């Protein structure tokens, strides 16, 4: 059964020729979507916690809308709509980056909202009492503490995000999975390629989640 598996074609040339390009894109997409998602997610969370209806309502619609649609459909929608809006065709990779920032912002905003709400009200009042403006209070008192509370959840979401980048398959962007698939097709060894892809994704995600667990313990001891 296992005798006819042959992994020997995965030499250095195949790795550099097919896989590295895909791995770079998957990692790049993860990093950009995490940073962009946290930035826009924080803004969305602040809108939802502002107590002003005209800020809260649109943010709530955006976040709940994004969270109730499958990511694959979101990827397809953006690939259709972004060229229509900006008036010129864009590549699958650029479309994927825009999609993931917009999509992850919704998820990160919920994490940020929970994080900001986990800070005791007394902290807000203390900031106000020493005469801080809203902006100073947020950037100097609330957000640094919220970020710290939320760090393990944010990083776990980043691992999920890294796994989700494989869904750019729907629009044919060249990510890690596509790299494995292309190599498998070129050498007529798809089975071995899918197996290796699973192993590599597992190793990366398991190692990252192990690190997050250790970080969580460290933070839990200090607090």
């Amino acid at each position, binding site marked *: 059964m296992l005798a006819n598996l042959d992994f020997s074609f995965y030499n250095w040339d195949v790795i550099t020729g097919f896989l590295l390009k895909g791995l770079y894109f998957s990692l790049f997409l993860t990093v950009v979507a995490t940073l962009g998602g946290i930035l826009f997610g924080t803004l969305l969370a602040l809108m939802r916690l502002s107590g002003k209806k005209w800020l809260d309502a649109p943010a709530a619609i955006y976040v709940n809308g994004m969270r*109730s649609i499958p990511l694959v*459909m979101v990827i397809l929608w953006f690939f*259709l709509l972004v060229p229509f809006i900006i008036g010129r065709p864009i590549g699958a990779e650029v479309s994927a980056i825009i999609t993931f920032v917009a999509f992850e912002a919704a998820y990160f905003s919920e994490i940020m909202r929970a994080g900001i709400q986990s800070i005791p009200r007394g902290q807000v009042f203390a900031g106000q009492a020493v005469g801080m403006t809203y902006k100073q209070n947020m950037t100097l008192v609330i957000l640094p503490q919220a970020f710290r509370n939320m760090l393990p959840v944010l990083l776990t979401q980043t691992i999920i995000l890294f*796994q989700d980048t494989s869904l750019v*398959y729907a629009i044919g962007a060249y990510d890690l999975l596509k790299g494995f698939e292309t190599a498998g097709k070129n050498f007529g060894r798809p089975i071995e390629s*899918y197996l290796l892809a699973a192993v590599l994704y597992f190793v990366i*995600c398991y190692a990252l*989640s192990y690190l997050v667990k250790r970080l969580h313990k460290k933070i839990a001891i200090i607090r």
Partner: protein
Amino acid sequence: MGSWDWQVFLQDPGGKDPTYWQWLLSAWGWTVSVALSALVVALVLGSIVGMIRTLPNSPGWVRAGNAWVELFRNIPLLVQIFLWYHVVPALFPVMREVPPFVLVVLALGFFTSARIAEQLRSGIQALPRGQRYAGMAVGFTTPQYYRYVLLPMAYRIIIPPLTSESMNIFKNSSVAFAVSIAEMTQFAMQAGEETARPMEMYLAVTVLYIISAFAINRIMASIEKRTRVPGFIAQAGGGGH
């Protein structure tokens, strides 16, 4: 692109369905079938794995349960679907006769079972230790005190994360587009291309996904209400997609 053209749903796609809207309904049926079947698989497997991860004095079982969760949680769903669809039948000849629908249900079910196992474990561990000891004290065997003492309360605690997991399974069923399952996302891609009216197709499919997720949310809310124990307040948890 310009204006909308909803008449496109009355056209004949030239397949086994006479019109696009009938094809869309059949695709919705596939999405619901995949999601609900996978939910059953995930609930059964997730419950078993979640339970054995909390067994007292059996580190071997606990380790096996943990390994299960790590394995199915750390590989992307799309890769797992490819493994079930391409690799499993190639390696195990008995699986060659299994229809693709079953393979996708198994893939989605196993993937989700890891999350449900994690939720049930934390649900059981959220119960006071005294509950377990109380079960032991009245002479229950291990299966008995799980069945009559721990699980009834643990399941109630985890209804909120189970609700979001049930909604996730509908969303995640869309990944089946990558293998030959005629569910809604595949319909959206194919029909959008054939008719050159992707906006109408995507919009219809998106609305049906939202309706499905909302329906399952209401069903779970009514289950939560019916099974509520007076005076017992369950705390929420969970996360992810």
